[in-house]
């Protein structure tokens, strides 16, 4: 994955641009979108609690990797709806999902030795799209590029809102 800051910046930029069209996306909801961008990386729990440890505990095969797929993310976000008061649940789910999906999409471009990315649409299909091998998480340039995108989105929305106020 690009580093987490890059993912968060990406989600911020997307939510900011969407706020032009969907006025309810206030800074609060952008923050939720950014939080959503952290969800797919939860699969890294395997670094602390390895798959093998869970397997021996459950007595069943197990892989955290499901969290880093479309199916896993959707279920995790619906589950996360419990943290909101009822009237915020729909919007909360929407922005969390936007952030999480933006994360998966950014991960599609990661460099891998086989040239294949990960099964993003699982469990619909286990197909692994080809990756253009654009970047990996250890490059500061990647963070900068996503930062520029986030700032551009911020600036554009600011300009548009200002000009609409002047009118």
């Amino acid at each position: 994955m690009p580093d987490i800051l890059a993912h968060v910046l990406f989600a911020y930029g997307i939510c900011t641009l969407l706020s032009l069209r969907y006025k309810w996306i206030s800074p609060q909801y952008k923050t939720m979108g950014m939080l959503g961008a952290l969800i797919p990386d939860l699969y890294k729990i395997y670094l602390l609690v390895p798959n093998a440890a869970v397997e021996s505990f459950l007595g069943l095969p197990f892989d955290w990797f499901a969290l880093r797929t479309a199916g896993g993310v959707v279920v995790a976000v619906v589950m996360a709806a419990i943290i909101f008061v009822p009237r915020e649940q729909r919007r909360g789910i929407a922005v969390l999902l936007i952030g999480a999906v933006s994360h998966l999409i950014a991960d599609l471009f990661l460099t891998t030795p086989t040239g294949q990315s990960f099964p993003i649409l699982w469990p619909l299909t286990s197909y692994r799209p080809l990756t253009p091998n654009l970047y990996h998480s250890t490059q500061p340039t990647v963070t900068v590029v996503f930062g520029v995108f986030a700032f551009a989105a911020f600036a554009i929305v600011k300009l548009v809102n200002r000009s609409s106020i002047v009118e």
Partner: protein
Amino acid sequence: MIFLTCAGLLLGMMVISGATLEQAYPDLPHESDVVDDPETYVGETVLLEGRVVDVDPVVIAVSTGEGTRRFTLAGTSQAIKPGAYVEVYGTLEDPDTIRVIEAVAITDEGLWYAYLISVIGVVWVLVRLFRHWRFDRQAWGLRPQTGVTEEETATPTQEEPRDA
């Protein structure tokens, strides 16, 4: 109720993915296969991760729970630093040599960068979360904090519908 259903569903998915989905790439011999029994996989395409222990030629040490084995990487033109972490996709020519199709090297500094910058990312989100959302004890859940003083709060329609 939805929460429990989803929790169960997610657990189920993790079990199924554990049974059916080889994490990164399917159908290729991995570290544990090749390190335990390299002779079996000679001539096959393998995918391994290891640490660079020598650079001319490049030699990587691949460790599993069972033990460590060294492989020489043939046919790589990349400048690979000792200590770097390499993902190798290639053909096992003999029990000690991998003919590289593609190798991705990640340095220690790179890993530290990724960790550090990721922590900054998480902290940024948490700070925003505490400023922008508050826990409503009565309704038992999060609701947006009103009157957030961030310059970008100037999404005008949110506070005062202008087109009204």
